[in-house]
């Protein structure tokens, strides 16, 4: 089952995929382009993993670590499918990151990796933008580079875990204006989905709605206002975003 949250006709609806179209919870059928897409669920704690693909680590000239590099993000940064992501006027290097997002379904504390996938509710696609100009070496990657408004897209669909038999064998791909710029497979993660759940739950309780963005493979390039960026993951769908010049907009989920 693929589920979404959309705005249509002035109200927020649940929705599901129906033969390439979108079935609203009212029963009505709609075209994808007629809807405003929200993140497909309301996240609680948002985890992001840095440097989790061997090829991307080489690309950034870092040594892989014995422990995953994990940081947290706030709800200000979330947006849905077809969102507009602002690019700061003074930035020289802003890039997308196509990532498998893992959504936790029930409380998990000190869970072994053998059981870890039993705690997963489903999967979605994340496009987790970074503005490298603002990186500093304190709690790197710092929030000024990685937690900007409307710079973490989730969606379009939350796909039930039962429909993703092996999350560690999914192809990922990003196109910018139709040209393929990033290609990889989740098989190349340094810390896989089960290992990340084991690692986090060893020292903190994960809860329903927590989401782990599992990192991105090599192939990140600069994007500019007007660019259309599509991040795709096999079996999960295609998540589209449009880069716009930053203006004075705010972004608070639910407000």
């Amino acid at each position, binding site marked *: 089952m693929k589920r979404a949250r959309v705005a249509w006709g002035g109200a927020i609806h649940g929705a599901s995929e129906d033969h390439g179209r979108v079935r609203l919870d009212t029963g009505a059928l709609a075209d994808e382009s007629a809807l405003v897409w929200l993140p497909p669920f309301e996240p609680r704690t948002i985890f992001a993993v840095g440097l989790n693909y061997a090829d991307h680590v080489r690309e950034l000239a870092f040594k892989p670590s014995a422990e995953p590099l994990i940081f947290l993000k706030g709800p*200000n940064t979330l947006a849905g499918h077809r969102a507009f992501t602002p690019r700061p006027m003074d930035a020289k290097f802003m890039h997308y990151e196509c990532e498998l997002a893992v959504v936790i379904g029930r409380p998990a504390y000190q869970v072994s990796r053998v059981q870890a996938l039993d705690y997963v509710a489903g999967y979605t696609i994340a496009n987790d933008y970074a503005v490298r100009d*603002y990186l*500093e*070496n304190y709690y790197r990657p710092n929030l000024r580079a990685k937690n900007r408004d409307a710079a973490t897209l989730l969606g379009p669909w939350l796909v039930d875990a039962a429909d993703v038999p092996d999350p560690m064998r999914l192809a990922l791909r990003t196109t910018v204006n139709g040209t393929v710029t990033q290609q990889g497979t989740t098989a190349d993660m340094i810390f896989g989905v089960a290992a990340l759940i084991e690692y986090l739950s060893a020292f903190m309780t994960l*809860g329903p709605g927590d989401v782990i963005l599992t990192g991105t493979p090599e192939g990140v390039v600069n994007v500019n206002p007007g660019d259309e960026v599509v991040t795709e993951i096999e079996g999960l769908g295609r998540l589209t975003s449009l880069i716009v010049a930053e203006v004075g907009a705010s972004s608070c989920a639910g407000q």
Partner: protein
Amino acid sequence: MFLGMKSVWLSLHGKPTPQLAQLDLASGRLQLAGAELVAADLCCEVPVSGTVYGTALNFRGALAALGEAVHAAPYLAPPRAPILYIKPRNTWIGHGASIRLPAGHDSIVVGPTLGVVIGAAATRVSAASALEHVAGYVVVNDVALAHSSYYRPAISQQCRDSFCPLGPWLMPRAYLDDPDALGIRVYINDALQLQSSTSQLIRPVRQLLADVSAFMTLCQGDVLLVGLPEGLPQARAGDVVTVEIEGLGRLTNPVVAETPGRAPRSAT
């Protein structure tokens, strides 16, 4: 109603929706729905609901403690913009609830700080108008396991369950004239262990709000912790830790050893 009473937002244990209580700060007594309460005896829920952002290295003494290291690897330069981190929901506990010392560790580091609670979304606000976006203030104990590096996010030290006591109440902004002149004290088992003041902030509250909201929106209900002073004390299992902020209140939590292999309270 007595002269000097303050109306504060309080959530008693089992009642997550905050209620207005009348507080006499000097005596530590409250009135709530006709009942008389003693603040020190209360067990509370957390009086906030948004995202809790911590600020690193915003006390002069804390940055000075790094010394010349800020110019060397891995930092290479002093911080430019505010350095933030997040204390997620599993870390939140109210006044009176227990801080759990993880198995295999001797002590926690106590992190007294002022929490600025956002009342209206703040995007690119000026320092001059920043306080208009503030609903009020809360006392916070930003607990961590000891760590010395600021290079990578320290979630395994900062994000343990119960490592962010907040409370007892939310004090509306109108009761505090100047958030940049508040005394901060830590008591462990009633012995004074640390004294500082928000006058030591590198970015005072208004400037911090302006500089954070320059790169991300602070949403209604979010809490921005202003930073931790230098010389943080440590507490062990069996200790009772109190963080006091002048004009705001006293947040008290006991430290208990975690029982190995036992599941904690359910995550909510």
